């Protein structure tokens, strides 16, 4: 039981704050930068800066504080990039074996997708998340849920179909 949530300079509280807000900060930064590698850098910087300024931060306003730090870091980079010479090192877009088109998905579309995921049936959502977020293979999911691989694939199939249809109607 954490006695004093207000003391951000405590490693335990800092970690709670990280676990609560890191993804939000990441999302916020990603939609500004459209660059996952740069986003990672800024998110790390923001939390390191939060720790360095932990005396002056309060738990109630820490989310705003983080977003402000992240935004300032982003603006500094934009300013710096405008000034730097073309020959100097710029930020390299993350090389990935996925199609880079996902970098250009609108925030609105992503939000619709999340709503649609939340509205999947329990069974569909479960398989969807185990496969996409926990990166489990259909065989592993089958073992975990104690159903056949075919059943897993059916659920995944209907989940994907449902997502497409739900997004069209949101």
């Amino acid at each position: 039981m954490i006695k004093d949530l207000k003391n951000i300079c405590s490693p335990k509280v800092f970690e709670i704050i990280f676990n609560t807000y890191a993804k939000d900060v990441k999302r916020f930064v990603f939609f500004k930068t459209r660059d996952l590698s740069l986003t990672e850098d800024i998110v790390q910087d923001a939390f390191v800066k939060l720790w360095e300024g932990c005396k002056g931060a309060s738990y109630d306003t820490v989310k705003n504080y983080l977003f402000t730090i992240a935004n300032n870091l982003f603006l500094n980079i934009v300013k710096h990039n405008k000034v730097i010479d073309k020959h100097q090192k710029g930020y390299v877009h993350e090389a990935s074996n996925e199609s880079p088109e996902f970098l250009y998905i609108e925030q609105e579309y992503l939000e619709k997708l999340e709503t649609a995921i939340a509205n999947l049936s329990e069974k569909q959502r479960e398989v969807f998340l185990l496969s996409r977020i926990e990166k489990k293979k259909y065989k592993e999911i089958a073992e975990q849920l104690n159903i056949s691989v075919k059943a897993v694939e059916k659920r995944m199939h209907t989940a994907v179909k449902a997502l497409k249809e739900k997004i069209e109607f949101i």
Partner: protein
Amino acid sequence: MEQKNTFNDTYLAEWIHGEITNNQLKELVSEEDYNAYIKLKSGINLYEALEAPMDNTLNSVKNRIKQGNPATKKQTKIRFLNTKTIFAVAASIAILFSISTFLANKDVTFQSGFGEHKKVALLDNSEVILNAKSELTYNKKDWKTKREVFLKGEAFFKVQKGSTFTVITDSGTVTVLGTQFNVNAQNNFFEVICYEGKVKVINKGKNFVLTPNKSVRSLNGTITEETLDLTTVKPSWILGESSFRSISLKEVITALEKQFNIQIDDKNIDNSIIFTGAFDNTNLNIALAAVFKTTQINYRLKNNIVVLSK
């Protein structure tokens, strides 16, 4: 193309997993649906990227905090002020304030003695390590608007990211944003080595931009740029060994004098010969041997004076 036995009710699962190609999907659904599915896949990929566990990020943050800024490791004591303390604190603040405005206009100077390394923490938590017989000065009041220090001698700088940080020496100026570099400003010798980040050097009107492992030096008016093979993240003198690369013996002699607080009489030898080598900072006899045996110069040490002869 491998023809998988796909049933009508699982092809999307196989496609999203990469077991069926986009082209194969195209043949199974209408064009409109196909476009929607393609966009959906991109959206799902983005969702995955944004929802991925952030344990690695947290670990990186923790490591950076551990390795970073000593100031952040300090524990702050929280004092609850009652009225008595408030007045006492207010009174002492008033006195301190008047003293500090008096001092604010003054320069702050740090000096290292013979054989001494001095670690200095600047107001922005940048760190400076002074080598022997070196001097660092900055103006407390000016520091608020610009980070500027004056250096005589040699120092290793670990500068916090922030506004432009400038090191001014008699031989040249070094500016950085946040990085690690070594500046050696002696009488006839000026050298800057970049260990991390980016360093800009202005020497006799010429500009140099150094990235890690790059150095620029001016020896008796001749400017050389080099790429070094640095195996350490800090210069060797911090770790107890002074090393020299193609430096005139005169500079090495000066370094010995500063390190060990001795005087070296070199009038009977040619001190312009070029020396590459190192000496241990902790033992004078070993250091003298290291320098002069390799250059085949005779030396005699008596009462802190070394006389050199051929």
